[in-house]
């Protein structure tokens, strides 16, 4: 089977071209020995089958990064090359095109985003460009599907360029790009559209900062209010009126009492349904992920996807850049931090967008200590909310103060560089509702797939620990720290043990202990900071290495303990 290498710069719509050309058999994988992702699939053109490889998007083939190295190798493996070019940014795209043509592989160029050139006042003489490059060019609009058929049927016409000499030096190549642009492209002057004016307002400090504050406030209220509404009007009625009585009845019919009964539904009875504290696999184990956390996961990822698809996050990065520099980071670090508010695992992985090890260490450590994931936040809100919003605010302000103060210290003590921000700001785009819902659904689904088994495992472990009296032993051992230093009941040790597995269920473990709101607040701060859940721990270990992970872990314990003691002194007294 012949191979077609699909190449192009980042953000030219290459993946859309790819999915238009291939069918369902698409495999996504890492290139051997690297973290560079690529996708391949098969396509039939004129009765012949081809393997289509989506080469990672790069601006050039000079091997200065892993992605460029991989792109270069994969290009060599292709029999035919399709070079996807952004027609609205022809000049910067042509550099890569020339590099590809110099390799003398049979090539065709897809001039993508063609429809947009008209709105932007860009005239491109395609025939002339075809002559100059010496390979066939097809105008495409991958999003709407125009030109894709023509592109497929042009694969047979792909040929090596006779007009582009090789090899050229970097300087010669840029000169050539300039010559070609002068010959084929005319840009008409046009006035700023209203959309561009609004876009500019969101990055100008005088207007951008108030807009950002309003936007964050709106997002926050949306997540909380809609999440609460889903629980109050939909999930709680289902659990209390239908699921609860049914499951208690079913379990009672074959295990009216005894170990199995307690393991499955705990202390719940038909008269006294207790989803939160009964510690049964089918009561608490189902209610916590579905009835308490899922609604907030849905509202959070809906909002996050909306901000992503809209293109707002890079603007936010610009506005917070100065502040984050004081913490040894730069504006782009806001993206992993926001992702971490959903789940620390993708948050830790997203720190790869930061350039240096110092930045990545600071970003990951700050996140692991001070950014609670949405599952954890949902439980904090549920448990502290019943005593008033004041207690929730105390937890989050404490975490915020820790984020800032720890960052100020880490910036000074961690060796390495903190480079400046350099970021392309894409134009705002109208989010597509279907994509938005699909994204939200896939996040909710993967939350359930990961959370439910672990929550059930956690409750199973708790039951074992109680049955075998291990909780009592550990409670006594840790009593000096928990009771004397932190002012918590010694039974809180069970939450700390479970917190290593999952934070949401760990916070749920605090409920049966009958604590005061002050104690619950301290316990929530401790649980958020003392150690990441096991999934986050392993991702951090992989990303940072053993030595840095040990440093981070030491910081976590130290910060958590000191914050806990200070909050105890403030809230409870000495």
């Amino acid at each position: 089977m012949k191979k077609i290498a699909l190449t192009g710069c980042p953000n030219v719509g290459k993946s859309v071209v790819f999915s238009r050309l291939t069918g369902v058999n698409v495999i996504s994988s890492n290139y051997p020995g690297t973290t560079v992702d690529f996708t391949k699939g098969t396509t039939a053109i004129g009765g012949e089958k081809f393997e289509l490889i989506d080469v990672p998007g790069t601006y050039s083939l000079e091997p200065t990064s892993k992605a460029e190295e991989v792109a270069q190798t994969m290009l060599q493996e292709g029999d035919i090359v399709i070079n996807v070019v952004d027609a609205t940014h022809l000049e910067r795209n042509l550099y890569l095109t020339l590099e590809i043509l110099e390799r003398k592989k049979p090539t065709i160029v897809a001039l993508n985003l063609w429809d947009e050139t008209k709105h932007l006042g860009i005239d491109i003489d395609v025939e002339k460009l075809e002559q100059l490059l010496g390979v066939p060019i097809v105008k495409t609009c991958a999003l709407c599907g125009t030109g894709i058929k023509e592109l497929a049927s042009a694969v047979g016409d792909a040929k090596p360029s006779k007009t582009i000499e090789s090899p050229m030096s970097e300087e010669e190549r840029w000169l050539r790009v300039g010559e070609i642009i002068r010959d084929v492209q005319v840009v008409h002057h046009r006035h700023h559209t209203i959309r561009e004016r609004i876009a500019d307002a969101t990055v100008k400090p005088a207007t951008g900062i108030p807009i950002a504050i309003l936007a964050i406030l709106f997002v926050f209220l949306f997540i909380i209010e809609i999440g609460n509404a889903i629980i109050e009007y939909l999930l709680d009625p289902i659990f209390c009126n239908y699921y609860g009585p049914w499951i208690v009845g079913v379990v009672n019919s074959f295990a009216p009492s005894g170990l199995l009964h307690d393991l499955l539904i705990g202390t719940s009875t038909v008269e006294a349904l207790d989803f939160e504290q009964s510690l049964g696999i089918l009561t608490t184990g189902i209610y916590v992920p579905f009835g308490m956390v899922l609604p907030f996961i849905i509202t959070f990822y809906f909002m996050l996807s909306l901000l992503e698809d809209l293109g707002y996050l890079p603007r936010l990065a610009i506005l917070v850049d100065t502040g984050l520099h004081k913490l040894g980071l730069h504006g782009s670090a806001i993206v992993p931090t926001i992702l971490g508010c959903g789940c620390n695992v993708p948050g830790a992985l997203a720190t790869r967008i930061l350039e240096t090890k110092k930045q990545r260490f600071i970003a990951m450590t700050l996140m692991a200590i001070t950014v609670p994931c949405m599952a954890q936040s949902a439980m904090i809100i549920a448990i502290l909310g019943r005593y008033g919003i004041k207690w929730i605010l105390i937890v989050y302000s404490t975490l915020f103060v820790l984020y800032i103060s720890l960052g100020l210290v880490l910036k000074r003590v961690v060796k390495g560089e903190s480079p400046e921000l350099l970021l392309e700001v894409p134009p705002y785009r109208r989010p597509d509702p279907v994509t938005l819902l699909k994204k939200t659904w896939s996040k909710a689904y993967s939350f359930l797939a990961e959370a439910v088994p672990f929550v059930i495992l956690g409750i199973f472990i708790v039951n074992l620990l109680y049955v075998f009296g291990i909780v009592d032993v550990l409670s006594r051992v840790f009593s000096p720290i928990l009771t004397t230093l932190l002012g918590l009941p010694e039974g809180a040790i069970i939450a700390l043990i479970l917190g290593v597995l999952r934070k949401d269920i760990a916070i749920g473990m605090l409920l049966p202990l009958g604590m005061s709101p002050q104690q619950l607040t301290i316990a929530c701060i401790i649980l958020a900071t003392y150690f990441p859940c096991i999934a986050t721990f392993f991702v951090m270990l992989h990303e940072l290495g053993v030595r840095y992970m040990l440093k981070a872990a030491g910081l976590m314990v130290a910060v958590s303990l000191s914050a806990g003691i200070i909050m105890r002194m403030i809230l409870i007294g000495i």
Partner: protein
Amino acid sequence: MSDTSPDGRGVPLTSLLPGERAKIIALEHGKGRQHHFRTMGLMEGKIVKVIAAQPARGPFVIDVEGTQIAIGRGMARHILIQKI
């Protein structure tokens, strides 16, 4: 302030105010960064417009032929321009 430095090499991009336009004269960065800039569309001869300058020595937001780029001041200072 004069529009070009005495030797005619241009002035730093950071001397522009929001809304001002200028022509890029030279990129005085290392080879790797220069290349990176060019692939982002930042190159000699291009017209650049400052959209916003963040306070407290924060980054500049500039527009080069329809592409918006946020760039730290340290890097922006080494882009030499001629006001137009």
